[in-house]
């Protein structure tokens, strides 16, 4: 199937031998827009890191068939006291095209200016990072993501501590990226935002709870199940006994997600 952008096969990710999310199977279609939803500690950011290739799987595989990947980590990972200007942060987005030594051309400069304009930060090029507001910083990070010109875009909680107007602008930008045929995965907490703008939802609680069309994934029952998961790492946790082959299978295809009601939907 050539329209698959990302494929999980029995993917287990975690730290020091403990799973943060385990036995995930499924595919993400090219050009789809998927929200990843779950409580704190449910494995959302871990999954993002796994897809971005930063975290090696404990088991299974995560195959990306994208040409280029853009990953926007949570803002807290960024050193805001670093003496850099907004434009320095945004121009990091040229790394995949220009690498370590490639010269930044005039055309790159024009692209960069275009990205800044798209997020409404024209004129902010020389502002030091520590003088940007939370919303402005997030806009700058979106400009960087845009500059990466990726076909698979991972956004980890991009709307934390961001005001309503910025959220509206950035959601519109995400819609535009999707219209350009890019595949987008976005970790979110705001269910109403997900319901309004994200056609697909992946609901996790250290394992898959539901995956499919947003309306069908975010049901009361599913959300309750996702909420009641074991958050803390249990010191006495036993070894996972799930078969190492696919324990369940899901697709992000709406029709199939309907069929899924009749089959096994989730692990456990």
């Amino acid at each position, binding site marked *: 199937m050539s329209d698959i952008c990302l494929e999980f096969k029995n993917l287990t990710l975690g730290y020091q031998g403990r799973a943060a999310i385990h036995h995930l199977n499924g595919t993400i279609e090219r050009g789809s827009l998927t929200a990843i939803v779950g409580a704190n500690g449910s494995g959302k950011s871990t999954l993002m890191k796994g897809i971005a290739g930063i975290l090696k799987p404990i088991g299974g595989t995560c195959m990306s068939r994208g040409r280029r990947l853009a990953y926007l980590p949570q803002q807290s990972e*960024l050193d805001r006291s670093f003496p850099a200007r907004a434009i320095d*942060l945004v121009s990091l987005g040229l790394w995949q095209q220009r690498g*370590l030594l490639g010269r930044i051309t005039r055309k790159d400069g024009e692209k960069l200016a275009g990205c800044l304009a798209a997020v409404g930060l024209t004129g902010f090029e020389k502002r030091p990072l520590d003088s940007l507001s939370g919303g402005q910083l997030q806009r700058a990070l979106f400009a960087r993501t845009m500059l990466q010109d990726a076909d698979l875009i991972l956004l980890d909680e991009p709307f934390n501590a961001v005001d309503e107007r910025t959220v509206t602008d950035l959601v519109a930008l995400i819609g535009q990226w999707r219209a350009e045929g890019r595949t987008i995965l976005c970790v979110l907490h705001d269910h109403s935002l997900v319901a309004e703008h994200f056609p697909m939802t992946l609901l996790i609680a250290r394992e898959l709870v539901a995956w499919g069309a947003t309306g069908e994934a975010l049901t009361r029952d599913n959300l309750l199940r996702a909420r009641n998961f074991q958050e803390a790492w249990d010191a006495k946790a036993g070894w996972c006994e799930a078969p190492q082959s696919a324990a369940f299978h899901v697709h992000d295809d709406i029709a199939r997600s309907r069929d899924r009601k009749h089959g096994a939907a989730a692990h456990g």
Partner: protein
Amino acid sequence: MGPPRMVEWLISPFLQYGFMQRALFGSIVLSVSCAPVGVFLMLRRMSLTGDAMSHAILPGAALGFLLFGLDILPMTIGGLIVGLLVALGSGVVSRFTVQKEDASMAAFYLISLAVGVLLVSWHGSSVDLMHVLFGSVLALDDEALYLIVGIAVTTFITLGIFWRALVAECLDPLFLRSVSRIGGPVHFLFLVLVVLNLVGGFQALGTLLSVGLMMLPAAAARFWSNDVRSLCAASVLIAVISSLGGLVLSYHASMPSGPAIIFIAGAIYLFSALAGRRGVLASFLVSARHKTA
């Protein structure tokens, strides 16, 4: 003292004595090389790593000194090997275990320092130890100058090539890891530069003071600048002024040259912390006048 006499006071030591010229040349080259490395150490919140590493290279330098006497090459190679071992050891422990690099670095440098002091006390006298610890910029021979120039050129080229990666690794390491695998190797390469510069400095300033020329100008420059490039330039300028001022002070007041250089750098740091654009006074003297946006 009028201006002409002031100038004479400043430059006469260098006009009169060859060893002072060599000391000035050596310490200025060292300033140009050390200061930008110090800037990146500071920006990576590793300011104390320089200090730890300066202790760590001691046993290597001591071993070279004990086996071959006061010959710069074995001392340098010894210091370099031990410094890299400590960097590698602490890097491996922090990367593959739960322990953070500050703790593993502390452990490795303390082990190294203890071995160094044991080595020196086993075979040498305390005078030898004083030399390794405090060096003498006034005794720089040709070999030492070549070494310092070589290290400066290596540092300059390496920083130039890996500049973009170093900045990205400091600013947003997770992002860099998502687009490139260069982060880890660049971190280690950077530690190699730190060790190289400390080793380059110990002949002139001693192991304990060479870190001063690395960190004090960088820390002082942070009060004046908010851009990595200008930070590096400002720290180099401060290091050069410290070298010049320290040598003049040491000449006229008959003080040891290394501590005099670091003393001047320290004075510039205190002045900057107080009166710099981003210093203590500036934070108190907030004007009520303000721009609307």
